[in-house]
C-alpha cells in the first residue's frame, strides 16, 4: 500500500527539512507515481493501456486453454524438492525469529513515542512501512511465510500463562479477519499513520493490547487463524511463495503451485478475505486519483460541510467507498461463480466453485503489492539502514536510492506476471474440479470476463495522475 505519499508530504511541510532531504524528496517524488509514469513515458494513450490489460488477460486465458494435458499440469504444479531442515536448526531459527520480532516491536513503540517526529528520520515509521509492510511482506510471497515465527504478538501471547479456553462460533469462520483487514486499510488511508510516528506508535500499542488480550482469551491458534488480519494476509501470501513448510518438512516448489492444493477446506469468509485483499490494492490506488478526490470534494460541497463536520464526514465517505467496493467485488465474483456453474454444466453450488477457484486470485494481489512496494522499498531501505545503525550508535549518512527510469515498466511487469500466474492456477484448479477438458475451460468464461473488467479498471486507476487525497 502506498505510504509513499504520506512520508513525502509530511517531510516537505516539516520545518526541519534539510537541504539534503529536499534533494532526496525531489528524486523520491519523481517515483511516487512510478506506475502512471510507465504508461506516460511510452506515450501510449490511456485507452490503449486499459485495453491492453484486458486483452492480456483474455489472451493468456485462450493460450492456457491449449494446455490440456492433465498429467503434465499436475507434474508441473506438483514438482517439489525437499530442503533439509534438521529439527535443532529449526528450533534455533524459531527462537531467533521470535526474539527478534518482540525486540523490533519494542523498539518501534519506543522510537515511535520518543524518537524524532520527522518521519524519514524515525525508526518506527521506516521499520513499519518500509521494513515490514513493503519489504517483509514481499518476502512472504517471494520466499516463504515466516510470520508465524516472527509474529511478536503470537510469541508474547504463547508465553503468557493463559490457556485461552473460549472459542468462536463456527459460523463466524474467518469473517472477523475480513472485518479486521478492511478496518486496518481504512485506518491506514484516512489517518496520518504514514507520517506521524506518535500516532503510529499509539496504534501499534492499541493493536498489541487488543491482539494479545484476544490471543490469550481465545488461544493463539484461533486468534491468529480466524481474527487477526495480518496473520491471514501473510499466510495467504505465503501460499504463493516457492518455500512451503509442510508436515513432512520444508519444500521448494514453483511459485504459486502450492495454491493448487488443499483449498476445499474453506472456512466461512475465506473467499471474502481474498477478495478483500484484492480490493484493498485497488482501493489504495483509487483514493489517489483525481476522480475520487472530485467525488469527495463535490460531496463536501453538496452538503456544504466545513470544520468538524467535514472532518467526520470525509473518513465516513472513505469507509463507505471501501465497503461498497468490497461488496461490488465480492458480488461480481459470486455472480461469475453462478455463471460458471452454467457454462461448465455442473451441479456444484456456486459457493463451492467460487471457493475452490479463489486461491488463483492471490498471485494478482501479490503482483499489485510488489508493484506498489518494490520501488518504495529500494528507495528507502538505505534510510532505514542508516536510522537503524543510528540506534546502536553508528553514524551513517541518511541516503535514499534513486530508481532508474525503466523501473515503472518493471512494476507494470509484475502486475502482468501476477495475472498470468493467476490464469495458470485457475486453469489447473478448474481441471481438478470439473470432469474432462472442455468443461473446466468453459467454467473459466465468466471469471475471465470479470477479470478483464478488473484488470482494465486497475489499469485505468494506475494510469491516472497521482494526487494527494486532498480532503483528509
Amino acid at each position: 500500500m502506498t505510504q509513499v505519499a504520506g512520508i513525502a508530504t509530511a517531510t516537505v511541510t516539516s520545518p526541519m527539512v534539510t537541504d539534503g532531504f529536499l534533494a532526496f524528496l525531489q528524486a523520491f517524488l519523481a517515483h511516487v507515481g512510478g506506475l502512471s509514469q510507465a504508461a506516460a513515458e511510452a506515450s501510449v494513450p490511456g485507452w490503449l493501456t486499459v485495453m491492453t490489460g484486458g486483452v492480456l488477460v483474455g489472451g493468456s486465458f485462450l493460450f492456457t486453454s491449449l494446455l490440456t494435458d492433465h498429467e503434465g499440469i499436475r507434474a508441473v504444479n506438483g514438482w517439489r524438492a525437499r530442503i533439509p531442515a534438521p529439527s535443532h536448526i529449526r528450533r534455533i531459527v524459531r527462537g531467533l525469529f521470535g526474539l527478534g520480532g518482540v525486540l523490533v516491536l519494542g523498539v518501534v513503540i519506543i522510537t515511535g513515542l520518543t524518537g524524532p517526529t520527522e518521519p524519514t528520520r524515525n525508526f518506527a515509521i521506516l521499520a513499519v512501512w518500509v521494513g515490514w509492510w513493503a519489504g517483509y511482506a514481499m518476502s512472504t510471497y517471494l520466499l516463504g511465510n515466516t510470520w508465524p515465527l516472527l509474529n511478536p504478538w503470537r510469541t508474547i501471547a504463547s508465553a503468557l500463562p493463559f490457556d485461552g479456553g473460549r472459542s468462536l462460533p463456527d459460523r463466524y469462520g474467518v469473517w472477523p479477519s475480513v472485518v479486521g483487514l478492511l478496518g486496518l486499510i481504512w485506518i491506514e488511508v484516512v489517518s496520518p499513520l504514514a507520517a506521524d510516528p506518535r500516532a503510529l506508535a499509539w496504534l501499534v500499542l492499541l493493536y498489541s493490547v487488543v491482539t494479545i488480550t484476544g490471543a490469550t482469551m481465545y488461544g493463539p491458534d484461533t486468534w491468529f487463524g480466524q481474527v487477526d488480519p495480518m496473520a491471514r494476509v501473510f499466510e495467504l501470501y505465503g501460499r504463493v511463495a516457492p518455500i512451503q513448510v509442510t508436515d513432512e518438512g520444508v519444500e521448494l516448489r514453483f511459485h504459486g503451485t502450492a495454491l493448487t492444493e488443499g483449498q476445499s477446506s474453506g472456512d466461512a469468509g475465506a473467499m471474502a478475505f481474498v477478495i478483500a485483499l484484492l480490493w484493498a490494492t485497488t482501493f489504495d490506488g483509487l483514493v489517489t486519483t483525481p476522480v475520487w478526490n472530485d467525488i469527495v470534494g463535490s460531496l463536501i460541497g453538496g452538503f456544504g460541510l466545513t470544520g468538524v463536520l467535514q472532518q467526520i464526514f470525509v473518513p465516513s465517505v472513505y469507509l463507505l467507498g471501501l465497503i461498497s467496493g468490497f461488496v461490488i467485488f465480492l458480488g461480481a465474483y459470486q455472480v461469475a461463480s453462478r455463471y460458471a456453474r452454467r457454462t461448465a454444466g455442473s451441479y456444484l453450488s456456486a459457493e463451492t466453485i467460487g471457493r475452490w477457484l479463489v486461491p488463483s486470485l492471490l498471485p494478482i494481489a501479490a503482483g499489485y503489492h510488489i508493484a506498489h512496494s518494490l520501488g518504495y522499498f529500494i528507495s528507502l531501505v538505505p534510510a532505514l539502514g542508516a536510522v537503524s545503525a543510528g540506534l546502536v550508535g553508528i553514524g551513517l549518512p541518511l541516503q535514499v536510492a534513486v530508481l532508474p527510469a525503466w523501473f515503472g515498466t518493471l512494476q507494470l511487469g509484475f502486475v502482468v506476471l501476477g495475472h498470468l500466474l493467476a490464469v495458470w492456477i485457475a486453469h489447473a484448479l478448474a481441471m481438478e474440479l470439473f470432469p474432462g477438458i472442455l468443461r473446466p475451460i468453459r467454467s473459466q468464461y465468466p471469471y475471465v470476463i470479470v477479470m478483464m473488467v478488473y484488470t482494465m479498471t486497475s489499469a485505468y486507476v494506475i494510469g491516472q495522475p497521482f494526487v494527494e487525497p486532498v480532503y483528509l
Partner: protein
Amino acid sequence: MSTPDPAILESAHPSDDQSVEWCPHCGRPFPDETGRDLHLGDVHDAVLTDDQRAAYESATAAEEDTLFYFHIKVVATLGVLYAAVVLLYMVALGSGFI
C-alpha cells in the same frame, strides 16, 4: 494433487426436475452422462469396471473431436487478437504505417 472431497459433493444440488447422472463411486451428480463418464476416468481410474472404462474412453474420444474444433477457434482468435493489438499500437504510436 487434490481430488474433490465429500464437502464438495454435499454442495451439489440438482433440483427435482433436472436430469441427473450419479457417480456410482462418490455419489456426485452430473447433468449428463458424458460429464459423469469423464469424471469416472479422471477421479476413480483405479476402481473402474470394464463398462465404465469403455464409457470413459468413448467420452474422451468424443471430447477430443470437440476440443480439436475448439482449439482451432482459439488459435484463430489469438491470431486476430495479436494482429489487432499490433495494428492498434502502430496507429496509436504513429509510426507512419497508416
